[in-house]
């Protein structure tokens, strides 16, 4: 249990009309998050799926104390961040451990020069100047934006802006980075750039990555997928386990990756194909085998 970076117990949250948290569970407003219990290990690569309004962003905001749960406990790195006597200093420590990258890159950048923006987080942590300099350079290197250090962010492409935003988080040296639909507003190229950085951080720096998304192809690349629907954690498992439950996903308005969907359709027509292929390559192989057999019905 000690290698769990994040642990939630019976987490619940309700928005009131003004969008702030209310003190008690109300019967009128459905909870945004309802009794969610999940533990996340250090260095895991997790995808959280759910359609709009399912509570997945609320889930993320509870992990770095942007929102406070009305019920349940959150442990970050072994510390209970939901207890009463949590001080402000401790709160900022949690936020520096759990970084968050949002959807719209424009609305995350504070400064008008790339490197000054990346420095914003470390500056807030009160680090000495030399250390800030070092972290900024390293972070820009990791995301491949070092040559743009002195550029104005509004002249960059969406993908580049998002990479700068990620550098701003990396510079705080977090243990967990939550990507809250960070690829949703990007073009395919930008999306791939951001996804590659995400996976590189997970692989090389052992940072726990939580990717909240509605792209099934992205989720299929994670170690573990969580499905949240109407504030409830419905499924928790490997992408292969989750995406082979095509019928169930359909029933809650989600889909599997296109390849899996195709194989599922074929199999329901009676063809002999595996339905747990989640990557394009696996799907290709499955179809090749099928065609090699002459496409006979099983």
């Amino acid at each position: 249990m000690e290698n769990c970076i994040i642990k939630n117990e019976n987490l619940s949250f309700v928005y009131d009309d003004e969008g702030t948290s209310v003190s008690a569970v109300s019967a009128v407003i459905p909870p945004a998050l309802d009794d969610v219990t999940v533990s996340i290990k250090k260095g895991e690569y997790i995808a959280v799926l759910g359609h709009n309004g399912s509570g997945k962003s609320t889930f993320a905001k509870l992990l770095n104390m942007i929102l406070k749960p009305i019920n349940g406990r959150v442990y970050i790195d072994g510390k209970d961040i939901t207890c009463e006597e949590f001080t402000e200093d401790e709160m900022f420590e949690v936020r520096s451990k759990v970084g968050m990258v949002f959807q719209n890159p424009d609305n995350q950048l504070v400064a008008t020069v790339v490197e000054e923006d990346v420095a914003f987080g470390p500056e807030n942590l009160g680090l000495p100047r030399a250390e800030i300099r070092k972290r900024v350079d390293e972070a820009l290197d990791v995301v491949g934006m070092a040559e743009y250090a002195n550029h104005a962010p509004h002249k960059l492409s969406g993908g580049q802006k998002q990479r700068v935003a990620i550098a701003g988080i990396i510079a705080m040296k977090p243990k967990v980075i939550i990507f809250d639909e960070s690829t949703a507003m990007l073009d395919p190229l930008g999306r791939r750039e951001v996804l590659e950085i995400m996976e590189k951080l997970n692989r090389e720096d052992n940072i726990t990555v939580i990717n909240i998304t509605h792209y099934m192809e992205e989720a299929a690349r994670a170690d573990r997928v969580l499905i949240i629907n109407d504030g409830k954690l419905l499924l928790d498992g490997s992408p292969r386990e989750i995406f082979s439950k095509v019928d169930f996903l359909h029933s809650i308005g989600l889909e599997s990756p296109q390849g899996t969907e195709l194989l599922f359709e074929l199999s329901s027509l009676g063809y002999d194909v595996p339905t747990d292929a989640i990557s394009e390559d696996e799907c290709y192989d499955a179809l090749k085998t099928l065609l090699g057999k002459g496409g006979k019905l099983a």
Partner: protein
Amino acid sequence: MISDITLGQFFPGNSPIHKLDPRTKLLLTVAFIVAVFLANSPLAFFSLFLAVLTLVLASQISFKVILKGIKPIIYVLIFTALINIFMTRGEGEPLISFYIIKIYKEGIIRAFFMAFRVILLIIGTSVLLTYTTSPISLTDGIESLLSPLKKIGVPVHVFAMMMTIALRFIPTLIEETEKIMNAQKSRGADFSSGSLIKRAKALIPLLIPLFVSSFKRADELAIAMECRCYRGDKNRTKLVKLSYKPKDFLWFAFGILFISLMIALRIIPQHISGSISEELFNFLFFKI
């Protein structure tokens, strides 16, 4: 189209002006503004013009950019110039007399200098500050210059942060305005014809979505800043520390010299400076 507006935008670069300490630039700007309003003789204006020209050349900002910066105020300039031309009463015979409209030589001179003064003011301040100083270092400069006020409870850091963010979002909001305008135009909205009132009314469907999205942006930005541990100036350090360098003192010396010159030109008896001015003026604008 709208994104052509350059007023208040930073052009990164490596010129001597870019490298100055923002506090130096702020103090020089204040001195410059005082100098602009001290100037009342052609000779003084001529020195101002030379000073601005030096600044522009030193900043390595292209003239095209600078001219673009003046464009938005051109109507204001024309309007004030016309008011000055028509409203100034001179001593001698009017140059043109048409019913109640009388135009005197003094009016034309005054209008000309008025316009000249405003143009120099805009160019000088934007070259010294906004074009060559990144808004963050500008705000750092203001914050540092005003920091004595913290002792009497003025929230200097908060103001500085507000300014940084405002400056940061100018280009973003301009982009957004353009997008909304195009969206409304594609649905038949007309922003460029009709009476003034009609045009003002046409702006409502532009302003409402712009305001709504700005509030949304503000909300998201606030959360993003909190996630990056922002907590005001409590326990906050800076990547770039401001420090005066020898060249800052050199520029201070220039500034002091220049403002002394302007004061001298102002208090030297009019008949001395006046006659030089008169000749210069006649030479510049009537002989050519």
